[in-house]
């Protein structure tokens, strides 16, 4: 497209557009873009936007699970197309636990497909179990867990792969507000410890405001970036941020930009229904 890629960036999107071709005469859906965006190496980037604006579509494009209609995506300088790249981990919006495997085997699932040794797998799974507060549940099946715990299993499954870029699609959607804040802190700790780049989709404005270095605000479908907000938080922030005036200012700004967009999306979907 128009601009050149910034090769120091971890991830670069240029003119990324996604149109779902309607099958059997159904109309095409312009879901996304065009989007230009660079993710800096090691930054925590959050995306907020009205429901149905194309957030998950954007994530699937980054993950290499979905082809772009136009534009291109570079991860670590290599073009993404049709396949997941090395060092990329994904946590999906839906519950992706494998119900026939124990929590332990679920977490080990991705690693088992690599040539990691059994001992190394055991060490990594154990530490992921501890980190996600699932230590007592290694032998349980997903059906015995709450929705929030299942989501933590999926997060742990991604973490054991030690990805350099972690894509999360509303990972805390199934959690209550308190657990959500604590899991957010846990994610911050992990982010600091690993130095990974994090791309987090959320519908909770306070979550985005608390966790991210930068927040991309998306428009109603077709999703474009309306604004990128720098929070300016220090690296060792935690949930106590929510008490500060600066935090209030960030969430206020997010809502200011999003309010109109959310109305648009509700009115359109409402009118169609």
């Amino acid at each position, binding site marked *: 497209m128009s601009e050149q890629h910034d090769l120091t960036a971890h991830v670069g999107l240029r003119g990324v557009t996604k149109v779902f071709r309607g099958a059997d005469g159904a109309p095409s859906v312009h879901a996304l873009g065009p989007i230009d965006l660079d993710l800096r190496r090691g930054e925590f980037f959050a995306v907020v936007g009205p429901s149905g604006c194309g957030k998950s579509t954007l994530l*699937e494009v980054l993950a290499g699970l979905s082809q772009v209609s136009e534009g291109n995506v570079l991860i670590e300088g290599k073009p993404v197309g049709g396949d997941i790249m090395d060092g990329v981990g994904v946590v999906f919006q839906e519950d992706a636990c494998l119900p*026939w495997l124990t929590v332990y085997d679920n977490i080990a699932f991705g690693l088992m497909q690599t040539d990691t040794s059994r001992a190394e797998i055991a060490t990594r799974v154990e530490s992921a179990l501890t980190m996600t507060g699932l230590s007592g549940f290694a032998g349980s099946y997903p059906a015995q867990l709450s929705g929030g715990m299942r989501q933590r299993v999926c997060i742990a499954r991604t973490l054991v792969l030690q990805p350099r870029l972690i894509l999360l699609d509303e990972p805390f959607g199934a959690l209550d507000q308190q657990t959500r804040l604590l899991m957010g802190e846990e994610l911050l700790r992990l982010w600091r410890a690993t130095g990974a780049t994090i791309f987090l989709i959320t519908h909770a404005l306070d979550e985005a405001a608390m966790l991210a270095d930068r927040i991309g605000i998306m428009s109603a479908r077709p999703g474009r970036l309306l604004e990128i907000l720098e929070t300016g938080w220090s690296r060792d922030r935690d949930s106590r941020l929510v008490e500060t005036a600066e935090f209030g200012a960030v969430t206020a700004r997010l809502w200011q930009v999003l309010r109109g967009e959310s109305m648009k999306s509700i009115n359109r979907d409402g009118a169609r229904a």
Partner: protein
Amino acid sequence: MSRIGLFRTLVIVGLVGLIEVLCRTGVIDNFTMPPPSRIAKDLQHIVVTGKFNAAIAKTLSSAAIAFAAAVVAGIVAGVLFHSTPRLRRALDPIFATYYAIPVLAFYPLLIIIFGLGDVPKIIIAFMLGVVAVILNTLNGLDRVPPVLAKTARVARLGRVGTALKVTLPSAAPYVLTGVKFAVAYALIGIIGSEFVMSTDGVGFEIAFAYNNFDNATMYPLILLVMIVSIAVNLVLTFWEKRLLIRRGLR
């Protein structure tokens, strides 16, 4: 035992008891059917003397081969058709009408081609079972949550790995339904063929006993077939229950 289980047992015991009484009081004469207690004793005799061991072994081994072939081929075909929607759409009308065709009608033709041996029987039993396995596998694969397919892609599994490690395990409860059909059809196919035309097997022995008014052989063998079929089904049902409980579906 649950209340419903108790009720079920009472119904069965009651029915068998009723037949016993009807036989002993002569309402059903002994040339038509001996009392159930007599049938059980005759079966015990057959088992102890081992008189029909060869026939039983023949029937069960043929059924086992047909069953295994139907399950393996059915699952492989199910996965293949699922990943090739065009092929599936082309074959759909055949699947839809398949069980309207009396497969056993092909038996004489198969005997002409393969001779009067085990092969035609096994083919009949296989043909009966395989489509049930295919249809149930397809049904199960249709219900695999899309996010699990994405998970397989993220784990970089290929087509075979995805099928073995993600989609088939996810579809397992449905595949198992197909497997249960395959058991029933394997026995029906083999014993049915043996009835119609053959030189050995339990079906042949039952037909032979029938022609010779040999109730002391015919009824116990029928009972044996029922016991085997019910036993296999109980094992599969137990397995299915455990699988469903584990997934929180029961």
